[in-house]
């Protein structure tokens, strides 16, 4: 026999039920429970602060620390620490201001606000924002560097396919875009070199 559940006795809200939210913890929308026995009052439109990175992308928060291999088939916002490799292939990676990455990164597009130590391979475009520090070699189709970004390493602009869209051009100084026909990526800085040791003899001495 069907037994009424306690919830069934609750008054039915006039408001239609909210659509189910995605299971992702990224969803920034909040579901306010409808108050029973209340006339439908037009609710105040609270401005939703929808951060673009939280809409449909995975999110790793700043307290998260990962060591190992990170792969995925969706866009990712990464604000924590990672040591190892990050492979998103055809998806975008945003490294937040708290992001501390010691990893080789493969993605389509990469936007860096935080700190990256490692080589970057991006088929699309790389953006280095003013707060970012990137130490490693970058191989990409396009690159945008904001004034104030710190970069140490090599930049290799990949040759574009003929069917690829013409790259945008921006004014230098504010944000520079480069899209030259480049060459295949290489590892330029991987060869060790015997450092000169000892104290310096003065180069002012007459020879």
């Amino acid at each position, binding site marked *: 026999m069907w037994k009424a559940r306690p919830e069934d006795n609750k008054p039915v809200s006039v408001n239609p039920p909210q659509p189910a939210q995605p299971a992702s913890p990224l969803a920034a929308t909040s579901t306010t429970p409808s108050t029973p026995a209340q006339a439908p009052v037009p609710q105040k439109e609270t401005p939703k602060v929808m951060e673009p990175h939280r809409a449909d992308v995975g999110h790793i928060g700043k307290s998260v620390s990962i060591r190992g291999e990170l792969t995925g088939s969706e866009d990712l916002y990464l604000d924590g620490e990672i040591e190892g490799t990050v492979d998103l292939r055809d998806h975008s990676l945003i490294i937040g201001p708290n992001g501390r990455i010691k990893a080789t990164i493969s993605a389509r597009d990469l936007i860096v606000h935080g700190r990256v130590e490692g080589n970057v391979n991006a088929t699309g475009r790389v953006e280095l924002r003013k707060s970012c520090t990137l130490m490693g070699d970058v191989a990409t189709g396009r690159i945008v*560097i904001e004034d104030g970004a710190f970069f140490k390493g090599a930049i290799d602009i990949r040759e574009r396919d003929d069917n690829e869209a013409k790259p945008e051009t921006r004014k*230098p100084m504010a944000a520079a875009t480069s899209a030259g026909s480049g060459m295949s990526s290489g590892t330029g800085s991987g060869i060790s070199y015997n*450092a*000169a040791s000892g104290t310096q003899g*003065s180069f*002012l001495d007459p*020879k």
Partner: protein
Amino acid sequence: MSSSDNLKRWFRGADAPQAKSAGPSKAAPRTTRRCIGLGELLRNLKSAGEQKLCVLDLGPTSPANIAFLTEMGARVFNEDVLRESQDPSYLVKQEDGSLQIDPSKFFVENLNYAPDQFDAILCWDVPDYLPESLVKPLVERLQVMLKVKGNLLAFFHAKDAGPESLYSRHHIVPPDILELEPIQGFRLQRIFNNRHIENLFKDFASRKFFLGRDNIREVLMVR
């Protein structure tokens, strides 16, 4: 005058503590100057006919330089040597108790490239501001990293303009203009005269001097 006095005179300010933070100056505006040496370096690069150019920029990261050089088809390497030299982890206590940068330690983590790798090196005025213990090892290393017939462009102050001789970030504005963005926190360490420069770069095949009206000597070295 004794040789130590000479050294003190030439390397004035070498012992002065440097500012902890270095950043773009808000007060000092950007200035532009025509750079004959840069124009000649770019002409040399084009005439070399090299398809895969490798260019090393030793100044602070400049989006304009990276954009310009990659559009030329070059592979761009960037190392802010002066900023790295501020890292206290490279300091080693000397016999007299003073702290000095250990070049062998420094070059393990910086400018660690293969010999004969670069077609051009943009040194800017880094040698004028670099700690003394790094100057000669740096030049020796650059010479090894440069390809034969590769070009190195360096600037030297012709006279000490005091606090006005600020270290600058150099932005290339094609074809031969440089935009100088002052960066505070670094002090001019020394004034090289022409003989010092020739001694310092003695292993290079040729040296061309261009004296600007702003008391900057541009020197284009060819290995």
